[in-house]
């Protein structure tokens, strides 16, 4: 079997050191191996797509990186040093965050919790805190939403505020789990271009999971494709090929380029899984 991880790193632009290295991670859940020997790395200033069908293990992989899920093998190295459990310098926007419309919390309160929400005790009002919050809201084009209740914002607006919350502590990595799911086309494009801009301007590594890669194609520097419990990483051209994906899925799949879109179809029966691109 051609090791899917083997294609990694050939297209590396060079000198920059990875901020995150995932090496040979395996995870078992409920006695079943969900991920096996997953390896990839993230570079500062780059946007990486974590692509795979539903149930492939994208959320699980993010939880391992965050230290919320213990792997059965392998290790995660952050900025050159292996980390133990505890607070990690990664921002996180989980999949499907449901914000209660009656929650007494304005967008600025939510972002402020990104600075010191893990601390015990009552916060004292501070000018620098307020300034950091407003800067971050500005960076995600949500300053005008600062005094609105978060639960009453639209899906796309909530997503931007959650991104500001994840970024305000100035992490070197931000992980976003399916941030485009359940967004309309316009909000989807807004969020995608916003994330590309953040990666570039703030020089942080952005990892975005999605079960559908097409919206990310214009901005994705690298891709980590997960399927069948394995992962392959590299540039889109290297990874999204008939050979690599067939080996991941364990059956023949075709990769079709239709205009600017990529469609992955199972060779025998195009109506069934795997299917990642519509």
């Amino acid at each position: 079997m051609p090791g899917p991880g083997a294609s990694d790193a050939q297209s590396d632009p060079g000198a920059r050191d990875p901020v995150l290295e995932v090496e040979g991670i395996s995870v078992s859940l409920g006695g079943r191996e969900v991920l096996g020997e997953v390896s990839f790395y993230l570079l500062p200033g780059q946007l990486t797509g974590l692509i795979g069908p539903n149930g492939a293990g994208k959320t699980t992989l993010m939880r391992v990186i965050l230290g919320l899920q213990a792997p059965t093998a392998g290790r995660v190295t952050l900025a050159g040093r292996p980390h133990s459990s505890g607070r990690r310098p990664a921002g996180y926007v989980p999949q499907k965050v449901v914000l209660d419309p009656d929650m007494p919390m304005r967008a600025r309160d939510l972002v402020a919790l990104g600075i010191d929400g893990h601390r015990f005790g009552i916060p004292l009002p501070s000018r620098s805190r307020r300034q950091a919050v407003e800067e971050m809201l500005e960076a995600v084009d949500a300053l005008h939403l600062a005094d609105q209740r978060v639960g009453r914002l639209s899906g796309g607006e909530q997503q931007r505020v959650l991104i500001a919350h994840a970024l305000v502590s100035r992490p070197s990595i931000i992980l976003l789990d399916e941030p485009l799911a359940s967004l309309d086309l316009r909000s989807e494009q807004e969020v995608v271009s916003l994330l590309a801009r953040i990666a570039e301007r703030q020089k942080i590594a952005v990892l975005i999971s999605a079960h559908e890669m097409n919206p990310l194609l214009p901005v994705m520097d690298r891709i980590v494709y997960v399927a069948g419990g394995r992962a392959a990483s590299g540039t889109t051209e290297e990874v999204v090929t008939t050979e690599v994906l067939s080996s991941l899925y364990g059956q023949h799949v075709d990769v079709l380029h239709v205009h600017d879109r990529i469609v992955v179809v199972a060779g025998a029966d195009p109506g069934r899984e795997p299917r990642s691109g519509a």
Partner: protein
Amino acid sequence: MGQMSTLVFAPGFFHSGAVGVAVAVGGAVAVVSACVGVFTVIRGQSFAGHALSDVATTGGSGAFVLGVSPLTGYVVLGLAAAAAMDLVGIQRARGRDVATGIVLGAGLGLSALFLYFDTTMRATTGATMTILFGSMFAISSSTIPLIAVLAAVALGVTALVYRPLMLSSLDQEIARAAGVPVRLVGVLYLLGLAIAVALSAVTIGAILSTALLVGPAATALRISRRPATALALASLIGVGSVWLGIVLAYDSFYWPPRGHGWPVSFFVVTLVFVFYLFTEARVLHRLARSRAALARLAARFAVHRQARIQAGG
């Protein structure tokens, strides 16, 4: 002016020691319940409050049988139930329903038995009255230090977990990723909740104790957009309801049936409800406005039709 004030405050109101104690204890308890209650409503854990108040009923009635103070019964069983709830796992919606249901049934069954013993063995209805309606005007000076300590602990715990609790109420995964010990924070909060319910049971009775917990908080949450305002407003509504309730209960000695005051808890709970209706009134108002607009439209249409019919005829 003087007459006006005796109309509101019945004679002797300001000279009664019991009233003074009730005002102080009731006010403190209202603040504790309101602050803890804001999180109860945010976290959607009113059910836990209800289960704890049922258990407090058991604890209070059991305390009478054993001859210890009801507050001790409320607190001991409340804390035990909070620990049990955490073990059963109130995080999961299913586990939480089952846990609440089982605790509730068993708790009320025991309360009935204890109250039966209390009333048959002692031939008084004191226990039942205390459990049902609280004992705001009969707080013994020996329990006041314990009440003060418990109130301070509940408020202290709430202040301690304020931010991590907000974060984990918002989203548990976000909180975990930020390094919040989500389970510990949840347990500390339940501890505060158990104490708030116990204190509330002393003042307005175990069965009604959740009214003071959930009512002011729910009202405040309809109005305020920010956490600090919600806490302040809920406290204000809680204290207002309790103090006004005390005044009315004191006045009610002069209402029929003469010589028997109405239970203060009745007034407190009713006032809490009235405050809630005020926030609802804004909705009613809006509804009324749109109804009026509709009526105007209908009237115009009718006039129009009338004119057409007349023109046609």
